[in-house]
Each structure stands twice: as structure tokens, then as C-alpha cells.
């Protein structure tokens, strides 16, 4: 069981994520969208959606820092355990609270607004279970172990997560992790596995290229459908070319 949860599942989730993204990009580019419901209702969405998205982005940043910045690095810049814990507690809780408030309002909106609820697919509902579950479990785990120096995940969870990327999972590290953290990690991995097959896939189309591209985009007709016409012979051209004037 330990091996399955902490060595097989993470890789399976990762494979599902990557393979699913490739598959979806190849076979369902049309369905790759945010599937926004803003045209049905925008007042609540205008508040709740930014709150949730900014919250979840901070949460993501927190996870990356927490899991992939080893204690030796923070020690090296003079941030010690106590300060780190407080930063993690308050910063993480704030970001988590934003995400929880946002998702709460969004789920409420989705359920109570008739057109929005009618546009909700079974796939969406399934996804919401895992998304809300992962967020709530994470929040619960954080708050349940907030007293004192809190639960020091930097000696168990984080090294385990890094060991996955070294392709030598140290499953033993996860044995003594509190149950809430374990549940959060499992649901989180399942959520990662689900991303390509749900509307969450829109997170991979963050349009950063918009910052650098020219405003007006020109494109030619698809040459597969209608190609460029062949050049007319010189004697049929509209005007005699100027001597020396090339194309």
C-alpha cells in the first residue's frame, strides 16, 4: 500500500497529466477552453473568480516553495525554522482562505444560478469533488497542525516529493506523516491526474505570449485548402516591370 500510494500513484498521475495533455492537444483542441459561464451571470463571478484564481496561484507558489526549497537553502539566507513556520502559516493560510472563499462562492453560484447549473456537465461535478476536496483537506491539514512550530513537512513530505524527481522515491518518509496531509497528497495527485480530462486544462493555456506579440495578427489562408495561385507569365502581368525592379 505504501509503495502504491507514494511511489506508483505519483508517477501514474504524472504520466496521466503529460500523456493526457498530449492526447487532448492532438485530438480535442476545440474543447480546450475555459468554458466560461460569465455570459449567464457576471456580478458574483467578477468577484469570486479573481479571488479564487489569485488565491490558488499563491497556494501553488507556496507548494512549490515548501516542497522544492530545501531547509538548507532557507537556513543559508538566514530564515530559521520559527520564522519559516510563521511565514508558511500566515501566508499559506491567507492564500488558502482566498482560494476557499473563492471556490465556495463559485460553487454556490454554480448551484444556485439556473443557467449556470444547467451548463454544468457531469465531468465538471466530478472535477469539483476533487478540486474542493484537495483544497479543503489542505486547509484542514494546515490548520490542524498550526500550534507551536506546527507540523514540519520539510523533513518528510518535501524530501519525499523531491525524491520523486530523482526517480528514487523514498516511500518510508511518508509513513509517519499525519493522516490529513496524506489524504491531501493523495487527492491532490488524483486531481493532477484529472487535469487534462476536465476543464482545468485551461490552466495550461495561460496566454503569456500576448505580452510580446504584435496587436493585429495576420494569417494566410490554409494552403491545404486553397493554395496560392501560380504566378502569371510575364506577358500577362498588369504592368511592365521597371528595369532592375525585382520582387
Amino acid at each position, binding site marked *: 500500500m505504501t509503495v502504491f500510494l507514494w511511489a506508483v500513484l505519483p508517477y501514474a498521475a504524472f504520466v496521466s497529466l503529460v500523456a493526457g495533455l498530449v492526447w487532448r492537444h492532438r485530438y480535442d483542441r476545440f474543447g480546450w*477552453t475555459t468554458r466560461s459561464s460569465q455570459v449567464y451571470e457576471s456580478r458574483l463571478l467578477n468577484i469570486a473568480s479573481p479571488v479564487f484564481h489569485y488565491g490558488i496561484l499563491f497556494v501553488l507558489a507556496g507548494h512549490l516553495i515548501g516542497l522544492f526549497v530545501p531547509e538548507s537553502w532557507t537556513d543559508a539566507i538566514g530564515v530559521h525554522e520559527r520564522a519559516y513556520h510563521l511565514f508558511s502559516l500566515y501566508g499559506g493560510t491567507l492564500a488558502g482562505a482566498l482560494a476557499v472563499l473563492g471556490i465556495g462562492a463559485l460553487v454556490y453560484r454554480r448551484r444556485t444560478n439556473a443557467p449556470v447549473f444547467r451548463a454544468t456537465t457531469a465531468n465538471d461535478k466530478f472535477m469539483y469533488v476533487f478540486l474542493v476536496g484537495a483544497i479543503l483537506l489542505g486547509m484542514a491539514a494546515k490548520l490542524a497542525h498550526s500550534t507551536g512550530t506546527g507540523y514540519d513537512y520539510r523533513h518528510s513530505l518535501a524530501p519525499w516529493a523531491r525524491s520523486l524527481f530523482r526517480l528514487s522515491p523514498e516511500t518510508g518518509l511518508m509513513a509517519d506523516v499525519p493522516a490529513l496531509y496524506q489524504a491531501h497528497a493523495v487527492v491532490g495527485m488524483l486531481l493532477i491526474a484529472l487535469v487534462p480530462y476536465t476543464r482545468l486544462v485551461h490552466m495550461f493555456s495561460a496566454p503569456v505570449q500576448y505580452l510580446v506579440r504584435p496587436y493585429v495578427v495576420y494569417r494566410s489562408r490554409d494552403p491545404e485548402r486553397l493554395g496560392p495561385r501560380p504566378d502569371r507569365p510575364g506577358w500577362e502581368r498588369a504592368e511592365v516591370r521597371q528595369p532592375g525592379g525585382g520582387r
Partner: protein
Amino acid sequence: MRVMAQIAMVMNLDKCIGCHTCSVTCKQAWTNRRGMEYVWFNNVETRPGQGYPRRYEDQEKWRGGWELNRRGALRLKAGGRFRKLAGIFSNPRLPEIKDYYEPWTYDYRNLTDAPLGTDYPVARPVSQLDGKPMKIAWSSNWDDNLGGAPAYGDLDPVVERVRREASDKVRFAYEESFMFYLPRICEHCLNPSCVASCPSGAMYKRAEDGIVLVDQDRCRGWRMCVTGCPYKKVYFNHRTGKAEKCTFCYPRIEVGQPTVCSETCVGRLRYLGVLLYDADKVTAAAGTADERGLYEAQLDVFLDPEDPAVRRAAEAADIPYDWIEAARRSPVHALISRYRVALPLHPEYRTMPMVWYIPPLSPVVDALTETGHDGEDAGNLFGAIDTLRIPLEYLAELFAAGDTGPVRASLEKLAAMRAHMRAVNLGEETDPGVAGAVGMAPDEIEDMYRLLAIAKYEERYVIPTAAVGDAHRLEASALPDTCAVDGDGPFGQDSGRRRLPLVPVENFHILRRRQTADEPSDREV
């Protein structure tokens, strides 16, 4: 000079009778689908009126189009690149479906399935958004023919602007009211703000013909284009979660056919043709400091296809020969640049729109005749233009950023044409002064008359095809490039996915039966 070609449209508003045939045929062709119930790529608005979606011209609210920043450079009115990305999680300026109208159908089944009773069964309206019975309170054309004008008329943003500048010009008292119809499609702008707003880069302007399209495979549903378009002609398909818009019927245009709205127009008021323009000048023209200079600036962007230098440059820019020839015969070029009777819709949005309008003159003739004057006398007509039932100021807000000059010039040409042609038709001696007063020669007036009054199908729609020069290649492309059974795959000979020879299912079964049958007679089947 970088010459580009654009298929453009001109609509002669004098001829529009508001029959909505264009809207209906367009709807049947393009938006008769779930998710697009509320969408009309082509709609006909009664002006004055709020339009569709309601009050779309109120750019202080919807923030469509471009504006000039403090340094005089163009920027999107809804905010620049950073602002768009920072606010991508919702779009506060997005119209809701209810700003267009809530689409509905009727509970038709009740007409046949209702239990026997004393009441006559009725088909109740049912919302197509939530499937519940609803009260119909607005539609794409609720204020058609000034319906409800005493209550709603003041909500027209153009009326508001005219009132600010000429307070007594717009009234809705019955005997003082006026109206005309404004058919609208996507403007296929030279400086499209929807394209500039799209974070995904899914929207593009086609290099060959200037048609603005949405790549459905790249659209990610960020909805910024809906806000970016000041004409609100990009729509959000609420089932697929993608933007859709008028395609200028490009599959028809490519084979030389007019758009569905043009083809089916009962009043024959639409003209289609090629315009050549200088792409290098577009940004500068759209950034003209004075809003009222935008019309002239856009005229300067267009190129004269009769000019040999332009034709040489067009050919150097790989514009096909028949497109250059089509530009010379283009009715759109004639109405916009040669006769200057067509005007752009809301040039102040700085998008350089490419669907232009000939402002309506008609009511003035009848009005003059009713007062006992000669309604087609040039002098009377010129004088009456300033006291048109449709206020000049109202037309100017629509077509010239509030400058009455171009609108009056256009209407005077139409009036001169009436006076001149009456003399011609009655066999009277024509007065060259009539044409001269509007800066045209008599034969020019007659050419314009021919184009506006009796131009046939081929003269109204001059559309060069995209495919004709390419027919041979298209034919060849139906065959595979290489033989199916030899050649190299990615990992050596015959590797990878092969295109197998086609084996019809019938042959497959006959073969198998022949190989497995016990009796020879069975094998013959």
C-alpha cells in the same frame, strides 16, 4: 507602400425597408445552433434605438475600440496587455446574454399533449438558458419600427450625444419622429480591436482578403474580444465556450459568391468588392488626433487601383492579377473613394471599419412634396437637407464622429443625382450647375445613378475567386503524394503509419468466404 487587398461592403440605407431577410438567412446559415441562440451575425436595427446588444454604442460602459493615450498613441480602451492578463480571471466589461436578450423557444408539445379541458391550449415561452417558463421582455429587435420609442428612445446613446450638442433636434412626439434602418454585420476592420484584444492570438485578419476570423482550435474562451469590439459583433458561444463572429461568408467569397446577407437582400442595397489599401498607413491613420479627421484619414489609406504605381506595388505584394482587376471594377471603391457617398460607421472607434453606409435621404423628398414644393428640385433639396426629418446631427454621430460636413456632402450628391436624373428622364435640358454644385460632372452623376439604381448582380458583387487559378493543384491533392506501398517512414522503410490500399468490406468478406468454405460451390458466392 505595402499594398493589401480587402473585401469590403457598402450598404445603401435609402433602400433598406427593414424586412430582416438578411438577418434571417444569415441566422439559418450560421447561427442556428445551440449556444448561439441569441446571436445574430447580421442584425437590422431601427434607429433611433438602443441597438443590439442594448446600448452597445455606450463605450464609456463597454470600453470597446481604441483610444489615444496621453502621448497620442493608440491603446485599447479596455486596457493594455498587462491589464488584460492581470484581469483575465473575469471580464468586468463583458455583456451578459441578457444584455442581448434571453433566448427562448415555445412549449409546442403542450398544443397537442394538453389534457382535454375547457381552456384552449397555448404554447408558453420557455427560456433556452434554464429551461423554465419565462416572460419575454426583450429581443434582438424589441424596438423595431420605434416600438416603445416614447419609453425607450431616450436610451439610444447616439440620441444622448446629439441632445448634448443640439438639444432640440431629436424628438419622439409622433408627428416629429423619424426613423431608418441600420443593418449591421462585422466590420472586418483594418485595425481590428477584437484581434488586438485576443490574449490567445486566436483571432486574425486574413492576409489575402482582410476577413477577420476566429481560429476555433486556438480560442480559449477568455472573452476579451467581445469587450474589445466596439460594435459588439464578436459573440460568445455559451455551449462551446468559444468566440464566434461573422465570417463574411468566406466559403462563399472564396468561390466568388456574395455573402448570404447580400445574396438574399430584397432591397438589393448591398455592394461587395475589393479595396486596395496601404497597410503601412493604417496605424497612423487610426491614431489621427482629431476624431473628425478619421474619415478623411481612412480615405487616405485606400489606394487608387487606376494608378499604375499602385498596380505595380500590388503585384509586387503578390496580389493576384484578377484581384487588381476586380479592384478597378469594384463598386465599393467607386462609392467610397470616387463618389464619396458612402461613410464608415462610427469612425471614432478608431478601428477603421470596412462596411460603409450611404446615409438615407428618402424622407426628405416626400416631406418637401407634402409642403407643396417641388421635392426633386435641386435647390429645394439642398436647402431641405439641413431640416431633414432625420437630423443631420444624428447621422453625423453615426457616420462621421459628429461632423455634419461629410454627411451633408453625401446627401447633397444624392439630391443632385435625383434632380439631374429627373431632367434626363423627362427629356428636359440638364443643368450642369446641379452636378457642378456637388463637384461632379454630369456623366459621373449618371454613372453613380447606374450603380445605385440599376446595377445588376455582377455589378453589385465584384468578387474575385480564390481558387480558380489553383484548380489543378486541388485536383492533384486528392491523390496521395507517393505510392502507398513503398517509401520511407520515420524509422526506415515502410515504418510509421501507412496509407493502406482501400479494401471494401464486401471484398473482404468474399475473400474470407472463399478461403474458408468447405464446398467449392460455396466459394463462388
